[in-house]
Every structure is written in structure tokens, then in C-alpha cells.
């Protein structure tokens, strides 16, 4: 697909159902187009494009190959079951042909989720989540995000302490609210 992501997003409805504004066309369904759109949507996580696509693919088509498999992969990502995702992807590699940088986009999403959850994480755990059995990817992503590892195999992600603090919201009463009461009381 040669269109930009924004173009695709603006036209998803029409693409998924073949609705053309200017011509009277019966709706038609193309499995390959739909699969590509779904995979592209996954590359845009954490945006909810993937969920929104599901709203426009009817049930019979959702059960066709490879759409069913792609939906399954997508749900694994949405529920953060990253290890299962990589295992399942191994068995279905042919589906992602034609989407350049698919795996990198997924790893970017995984790092995003790790980045908002962890202050420090074990190297081994991160490697598992990145689907990196040969331990080649972790260093690449650590470099991208400036994450540093200590001697004990712990990777420092982000100083979460600074922003995740208990908050106490106290009631504030401004003068205007009480001024009329004060004026009428003796």
C-alpha cells in the first residue's frame, strides 16, 4: 500500500467495505486489502485503529484466513501477552510479508508500554518481551531510548518516582463564593 497512514485512516471505512462515495457500487470485500489494513493498524499502536477496524469487518469475514490469525495477533498485543505474540508470529510469518518494519513497529509499542510501567527492569524479562531469544535486539532498543544496564543485569528505564507521587486534592474555596454570604450575615 503506497498511501500514507493518515490517508489510509481517512479512508478505512471505504477500503474495508468498498463503499465509494460517487459511484453506486455494491460493497465488495477483499481479503488481502483487509489484512494489510489490519497489520498497518497494528503498527500504529497504541492508537486504537486496530479496534476501530474490527468494528467494520463483519463476522463471516473475520473468520477467513489470514484475517482470523491477524486478529488473534492483535488481541495478544492489546492484552500485552508479548511472549505469546512472538511465538504465534513465528508460526505465521508469511502474513506480515509486504509490511515493511512490522516487527520494529511492534517493538516500539512494547518499549512504549515498558517505558510507562517500569523504572527498572531485568534484562532477561525485557528480552522475552521483545521476542529476542538470541539477545540481539535488546541492545539496539536500549540505545534507541538511552536505557542503561547495571552490573546486576537491571536496565534503568525512567525516573518514575518523580511523576508517580501520591496526590492530595484539597478543597479550595475562593473569596467570591463566600463574599455574598459574608455581606448578608451580621
Amino acid at each position, binding site marked *: 500500500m503506497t498511501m500514507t497512514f493518515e490517508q489510509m*485512516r*481517512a479512508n*478505512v*471505512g471505504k477500503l474495508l*467495505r468498498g*463503499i*465509494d*462515495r*460517487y*459511484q*453506486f*457500487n*455494491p*460493497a465488495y470485500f477483499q481479503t488481502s486489502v483487509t489484512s494489510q489494513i489490519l497489520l498497518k493498524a497494528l503498527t500504529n499502536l*497504541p*492508537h*486504537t*485503529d486496530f*479496534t*476501530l477496524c*474490527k*468494528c*467494520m469487518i*463483519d*463476522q463471516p469475514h473475520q473468520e477467513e484466513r489470514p484475517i482470523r490469525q491477524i486478529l488473534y495477533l492483535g*488481541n495478544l498485543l*492489546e*492484552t*500485552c*501477552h508479548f511472549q505469546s505474540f512472538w511465538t504465534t508470529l513465528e508460526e505465521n510469518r508469511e502474513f506480515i510479508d509486504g509490511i515493511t518494519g512490522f516487527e520494529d513497529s511492534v517493538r516500539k509499542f512494547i518499549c512504549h*508500554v*515498558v517505558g*510507562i*510501567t*517500569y*523504572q*527498572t*527492569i*531485568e534484562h532477561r*524479562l525485557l528480552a522475552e518481551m521483545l521476542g529476542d531469544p538470541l539477545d540481539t535486539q535488546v541492545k539496539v532498543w536500549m540505545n534507541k531510548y538511552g536505557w542503561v544496564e547495571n552490573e546486576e543485569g*537491571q536496565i534503568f528505564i525512567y525516573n*518514575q*518516582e518523580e511523576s*508517580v*507521587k*501520591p*496526590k*492530595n*486534592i*484539597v*478543597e479550595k*474555596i475562593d473569596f467570591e*463564593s*463566600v463574599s*455574598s*454570604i459574608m455581606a*448578608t450575615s451580621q
Partner: protein
Amino acid sequence: TRYRIIHDYDLHTGDPKADLAYERQYEHQQTYHVIPEVIKNFLQYFHKTISDLIDQKVYELQANRVSSESIEQKIYEIQDVYENSWNKLTDRFFKTSPWPEAEAIATLVGNDAVFLILYKELYYRHIYAKVSFQSFSQYRCKTAKKSEEEIEFLRSNPKIWNVHSVLNVLHSLVDKSNINRQLEVYTSGGDPESVAGEYGRHSLYKMLGYFSLVGLLRLHSLLGDYYQAIKVLENIELNKKSMYSRVPECQISTYYYVGFAYLMMRRYQDAIRVFANILLYIQRTRNMFQRSTYKYEMINKQNEQMHGLLAIALTMYPMRIDESIHTQLREKYGDKMLRMQKGDLQVFEELFSFACPKFLSPVVPNYDNVHPNYHKEPFQQQLKVFAEEVQQQAQLSTIRSFLKLYTTMPVAKLAGFLDMSEQEFRIQLLVFKHKMKNLVWTSGISALDGEFQSASEVDFYIDKDMIHIADTKVARRYGDFFIRQIHKFEEVKKIKLKW
């Protein structure tokens, strides 16, 4: 049955009994000598009142006088006709059939063209209130109950109320009125007339253009394309009062569909904000609506539906909202919200079914091979996506309540309390963070704009094998309560003194 020409606004509802009754009535109305005497008298009175008003106004304008009392009186009479008599007579004579066609009553009112325009407006509004594109689409899908003739007619005329046609009409109105350009210029403080074009400068076309945008919002929502639904409004600043936002029913409808789209897009904060705003608006303007009109019924229904949707959104994403709305919500749905928090999927689904729009299929069914529940499929599809989302977040409510109890703890220990393996618990914590970080509108005109934010009342992070939790505590607003009560007593005192 004899084969009949069916108009675009056919009143079949899909219910065989009502349809049969309608057909009998409709055959009657075709020959106008069956118009009841009461109706004839009413129309003549209505016509006279309006002509008198116009005559009086013309006279006064020519004599350079300002509006007199007789005009005020006439305006009052017309309002009474319009809001009371018309509705009463509709209830009595035209509950399931249309009023007589304009041609049928023209001689009664001296073929007055001006009056006939008003009459046609009321005639079509009545029909629209009883049936519309949505109902027709659903009718089209309820093929099991149809006769051979009807099926043949539908098959050979797929253009009737087809999605494509409706889309085309709405888009044409939008294009012809240049409404998008006008809105762009209007919101940047310029004069919309400069870009309105030949048609768009007429207020009729301008408003048609605006309402077509709302129509597109609605149609895309009914087809499950929520992104596109909100996108068509990208030049409309929803929060701002404008010359376009003066029709209450339109405002309420708009907010309903925008809120629903936000909910399906997992923009919980935005959904909650939109619903809370419009529910407050309805609370304030309730008294303005006549109870007998279909307008009131429609607004009432959407009010109830939006409370339901708000209940769902607040369950998925607990946050503070306006106290008066929160109170109302607890009264209506307190029990259901508790059950949803405990993970009762059935309550979620029931509430969704009640509150969601009546979804449509964009596709014409294959009449030869369609099963009886075909018309429910669009709804089932949306319900499935919603239910999946609820399932994916099923553990989060429980986790949230446990997190509130502690400040620091080993991850493994808390996992044990929750009866989960440490691995699964860590995964759920990732899900929590992922699902609670949504796109939130902060600035800009388009309702699609937004930044990723999390306003979760409970937050946490994992450091090595420990979880650190931060809670947000909100102090009770005693001061606010006392101030309001004091003001109320002052009001009571004033009234007592008057008496």
C-alpha cells in the same frame, strides 16, 4: 394484494399487524373525501389565523407601526395550534398514518401557496418522526416477514434509501453550501459570507449544510466508522456556543453520537467530558420542552441512554465528574455500576444494548439467501467489539481496588493476594497502564485532536521486583455544600418574607 407504488418515505415498520392497518388507512387517505370534519375545520382555522397574522403584519409595516397587541395575540394562537392542537389531532387521527397530502386539502385553504408550504413542513416532520432511513434499513433486513411482491420490489430497486444515496445527498448538501469553508472562516473570526458561494449565503443552504454534517456524523456512527464520524465535524468547535448550536435537539443528538464514538475509540476521558456536559445542559433546559411533542420523547430517550453510556465509561475509567450529574447517575445506575465493577459482563452488554445507536448494515442483503436475524448483525458486530474490550480489561477493576490499599510491596506478594502468578500479574499491570493511557482532547478545533494522557486516580510503577503505588485522595467538599445550603435558605427566607 394489489401491487402499489411505494414512495421513498414508505411507512412500513416491519410489523405485519401495523403494516396492514397502515395499508388500510393509506388507501383511505388517497381519496380525500374521507377527511374527518374536525380536521377540515382545524385546517381552515389554522390557515385563517396565519393569513390574518401576515395581513396584519403587512399593514403595520406599511403604516410604519411596530408590532401591536393583536399580533402578539395571533402569535400566541398560532403557537397554541402548532404545539397543542396539531399534536392532539395527530394522536387522535394520525397515529399510524400520515396527515392528508397537501394536494388533498389545498381547496380547503383557498390554494394558499404560503400556507401549503408550512403544511407540507408539518406533514413531512410527522412522517419523519414515525419512520426514517434507519427504520427502513431495518425493515429491509427483516426479510422473513415480507411478501413475495415486496421482496421483488426491493430487489429491483436497491436504490431506495440506499446507504450510497444517503451519503451522496448529505455530501452534496455539504459541498453546495460550502459549509466547511464557512466554518473555517467563522472560527478564525472572519466573515463566512466571503466564502459562502452562491448557495451557501442563503441561510437555508447554510443550515442544511450544517445539519448534513451532523447527519454524516450520525450515519458514519450507525455504520460503525467512528473515526470518520468525528472527522466530519473537524471544523466545528463543539464546546463553543455558535450561531449553529441553537437547536437543542441537534446539540443533544450531536453530543450523543460524539460521546458514543469516543467510547468506542477508547477515549474515555473525552467521552465522560462530553456526556457530563450535555447531561448538565439537558438538566438546565428541560423545562423548555413541551411534554407532548416527539421532540421531548426523543430528548428524554437520549438522556437516559447517555446516562447509561456515562455509567459504562466511568466504570472503565473512574474519575471525578460534576457532583449533580454523579448523584443522578448513582440514583439511576448505582447498582449496575457496582455489578460492572465486579466484572459482570451481562450488565455491560445489557446497558450497551439499551444505550447504543441502532446500527445499520451498508450492504443490501441477498434476498435469496438471508436468515431471519440478518437485521441484528450490525448490532451484534459492535457489541462483540465492545464486549471484547470489556473482557480485555476484566481484571483491572479488582487490581485497582487492591492497589488503593498499599503503597509499596513486592510484586510477587501482591500477585499472590490477587490469586495470580507473578508473570500474569506483571502482564496485567502492563495492560492497566496501556488501557488507562488514552488520547485526550486538550486544544484545537477538531474533536479528533488529542494527546496521550492518563488521569488515573491510582498510579504505580515497578522498580526491579517492587511495586510502588501512588493514590489520589480527594478531600470532601464540605465548604461547597454549606455555601449551597446557605444560599438555598436565603431564597426560602425571601419567599417567606414576601408572604
